[in-house]
């Protein structure tokens, strides 16, 4: 059954791809809708069955498809494992994924590449499921790479505009840079532990046999991969550019699922990271820095999707704070709740963009409260969730993270996270108010939205409002069901209930203040911030990080490639081969006189041969 869950999306992607290639101008696109949305729907069923069977108390489910490589110690099977962590991940990935597929059916309707889109989208689903359900690091890496590929294909979907292709390349290349570390980490793991079988269970059992230095190295290198995949500093610059893809892509890949693969990976390797708390601390610092950094930039952005992109990066920072400090369940819980409200936010943003005929600047929107009521209400719920206002989902997960941060006694991290919480509320409500509340000069002429786009919003709003209750802490009388179900090696909290209550109150207060600040700034008149001070210029230009990378890394590489293409390749390599060929030709040319067509010369050659033989025979006769 697990194999089915992974293989079905791949098969449907293949089928749709073949169909699209063979009949590119198919009139009736419904076949793509049926297969493209139906397959994820089937995976929802399968994943829920898996989850429920695990909830009934069954132990981890295994399923092997076939043996792939078997060379000495290196035995890799295409095998799947559904333990509690995977089951939870798979459940929300498939549910939210299916909702976004339905949304995409409406969003992409009429596009010439409709079939191609769903082929890629299903490819992504299959890859993500493969990543999460893999039972050994190699299969997880295969899934890791495939989601990167799907991301590249989908970002560059509108390929006629070369800027989109550049953005897709950027995403893929930065991903690859991260994967470099990831691969080395896997190789080190194999060298150290491969002899006992290379599945996660086997590695987990033997992990303590490696030295702490080796474990730290592996841990850091794995995180380098996560930096690329989950857009943390310094490999984050691809995420804002990735917004060039269609909005369903942003919703599914760059908000709810792919970018969370890094967090999942750390949780999956929790047996490793519990041994190396220092590396975990480093991860937490990177997460905190990314969170704060992204929040600052987001506060000044005008493009609605870019605001959400930076917001994703910021929330991912939160997740890494959690898993870095050992609160694995809280991190995964935040992944879970974040998927709901971030997908909702993106889908709502997509709805607004479509309604306003592809306008993406929030300062050109406004007063949409009355005209798009459904979108308004659902996005309002999502914004409340992300700002950590109870009783919505984000409150519970974010609060858990902040409490863990405080309890770990790394107060700098806690401070950064708390400031970020304030900023999060501020910029999210800034966006909401600018889009829906602010006054506009003239009425917008709206495009009607299909129901396939608005219905999923309702589901997700419901989810954002309620799923928080799955992980209520004990302090509030909840059973922390989510955490106990996951059974990850969490660090226990060292806080009294009083301290917890105080912290929670602080968080809520900050969230509300952020909302009020945004209201005062943007609810009536929404104007973009002008770059009139140095600080403002710096932030509006995203701290010039892209420019820095271009200068320091991209340009030297380009110079080097040009050098090789124009100088080294033609002169050295081609020249060497050419010299060989030319030299041979020159020698051959010298011998052409042997065949100049004159009979006299041929007779002479015969004579030379005869002469040589005669001399030889004279020697033999003893005459000479």
């Amino acid at each position, binding site marked *: 059954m697990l194999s089915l869950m992974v293989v079905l999306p791949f098969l449907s992607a293949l089928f749709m791809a073949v169909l699209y290639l063979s009949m590119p101008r198919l009139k009736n696109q419904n076949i793509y809708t049926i297969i493209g949305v139906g397959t994820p729907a089937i995976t929802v069923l399968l994943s829920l069955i898996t989850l429920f069977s695990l909830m009934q108390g069954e132990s981890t489910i295994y399923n092997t498809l076939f043996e792939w490589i078997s060379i000495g110690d290196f035995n890799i099977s295409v095998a799947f494992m559904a333990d509690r962590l995977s089951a939870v991940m798979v459940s929300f990935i498939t549910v939210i994924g299916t909702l976004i597929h339905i949304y995409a059916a409406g969003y992409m309707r009429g596009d010439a590449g409709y079939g191609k889109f769903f082929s890629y989208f299903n490819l992504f689903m299959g890859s993500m499921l493969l990543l999460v359900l893999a039972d050994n690091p190699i299969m997880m890496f295969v899934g890791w790479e495939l989601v990167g590929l799907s991301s590249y294909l989908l970002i560059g979907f509108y390929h006629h505009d070369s800027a989109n292709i550049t953005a897709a390349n950027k995403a893929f290349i930065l991903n690859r840079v991260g994967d470099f570390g990831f691969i080395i980490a896997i190789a080190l793991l194999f060298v150290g532990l491969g002899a006992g079988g290379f599945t996660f269970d086997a590695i987990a059992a033997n992990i303590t046999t490696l030295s702490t230095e080796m474990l730290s190295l592996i841990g850091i290198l794995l995180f380098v991969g996560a930096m690329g995949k989950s857009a943390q500093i310094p490999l984050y610059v691809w995420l804002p550019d990735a917004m060039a893809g269609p909005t369903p892509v942003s919703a599914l890949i760059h908000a709810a699922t792919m970018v969370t693969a890094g967090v999942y990976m750390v949780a999956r390797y929790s047996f490793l990271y519990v041994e190396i708390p220092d590396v975990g601390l480093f991860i937490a610092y990177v997460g905190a820095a990314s969170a704060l950094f992204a929040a600052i930039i987001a506060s000044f952005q005008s493009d609605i999707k870019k605001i959400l992109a930076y917001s994703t990066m910021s929330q991912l920072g939160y997740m890494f704070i959690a898993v870095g400090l050992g609160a694995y369940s809280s991190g995964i819980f935040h992944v879970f709740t974040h998927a709901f409200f971030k997908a909702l936010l993106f889908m709502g943003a997509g709805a607004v963009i479509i309604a306003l005929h592809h306008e993406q600047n929030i300062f050109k929107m406004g007063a949409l409260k009355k005209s798009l009521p459904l979108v308004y209400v659902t996005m309002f719920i999502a914004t409340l969730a992300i700002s950590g206002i109870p009783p919505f989902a984000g409150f519970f997960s974010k609060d858990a993270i902040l409490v863990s941060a405080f309890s770990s006694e790394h107060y700098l991290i806690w401070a950064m996270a708390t400031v970020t919480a304030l900023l999060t509320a501020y910029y999210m409500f800034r966006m909401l108010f600018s889009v829906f509340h602010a006054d506009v000069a003239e009425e917008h002429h709206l495009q009607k939205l299909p129901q396939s786009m608005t219905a999923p919003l309702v589901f997700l709003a419901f989810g954002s409002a309620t799923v928080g209750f799955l992980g209520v802490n004990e302090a509030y009388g909840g059973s922390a069901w989510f955490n106990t179900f996951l059974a990850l090696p969490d660090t226990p909290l060292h806080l009294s209930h009083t301290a917890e209550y105080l912290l929670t109150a602080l968080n809520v207060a900050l969230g509300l203040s952020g909302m009020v600040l945004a209201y005062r700034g943007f609810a009536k008149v929404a104007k973009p911030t002008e770059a009139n001070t140095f600080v403002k210029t710096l932030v509006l230009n995203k701290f010039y990080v892209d420019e820095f990378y271009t200068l320091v890394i991209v340009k030297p590489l380009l110079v080097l490639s040009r050098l090789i293409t124009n100088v080294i390749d033609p002169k050295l390599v081609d020249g060497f081969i050419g010299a060989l060929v030319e030299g041979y030709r020159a020698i051959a040319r010298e011998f052409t006189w042997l065949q100049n067509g004159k009979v006299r010369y041929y007779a002479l050659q015969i004579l030379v041969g005869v*002469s040589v033989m005669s001399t030889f025979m004279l020697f033999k*006769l003893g005459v000479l």
Partner: protein
Amino acid sequence: MLELSLFSILALFMLGGSVAMIINKQPLFSAFGFLVSMLGLAGMFALLDSQFLALAQIMVSVGAIVVVSMLTILTVNAKEKNLPDEPYKYRWIIFSALLVSPLTLLMYKSMTLLHEQFNGIDVVDTKAMGSLLFSQWVLPFEIVSVLLLSAMVGAIVIARKKRTKVQER
């Protein structure tokens, strides 16, 4: 003694004629040298007691071949300036003479190592030749006649002018 002096004279004719033949620029003078050489050869045949062969040599080689060669040379009638220009003639001759000297030496030495002697029996006379020719060697004799016929036909075919179609005005 007589024979030796005759031999010397005839050998001189032959060698002189052949050297003249290969050195001369004008083909007609080469032909004259060739003629002299062939006559010398006829004399040699006579010295070796094959009288019939000597006469046949004069009739065919001199009377037919040399004549036909001269006929062709005169028919072609190349002017002095149309003759091939051979700037390095003597160098070529000396070079090839050097190359061919081992062969000459080999030929001479391999035959003298046989230590043969002339026996004095005068068996190579016409009668002996005739009886052999029509008994043992009759097949090659017939084949040579066919060969001569085909050579005649072939020469005509090769040397004739191409027939060109003449347009009737």
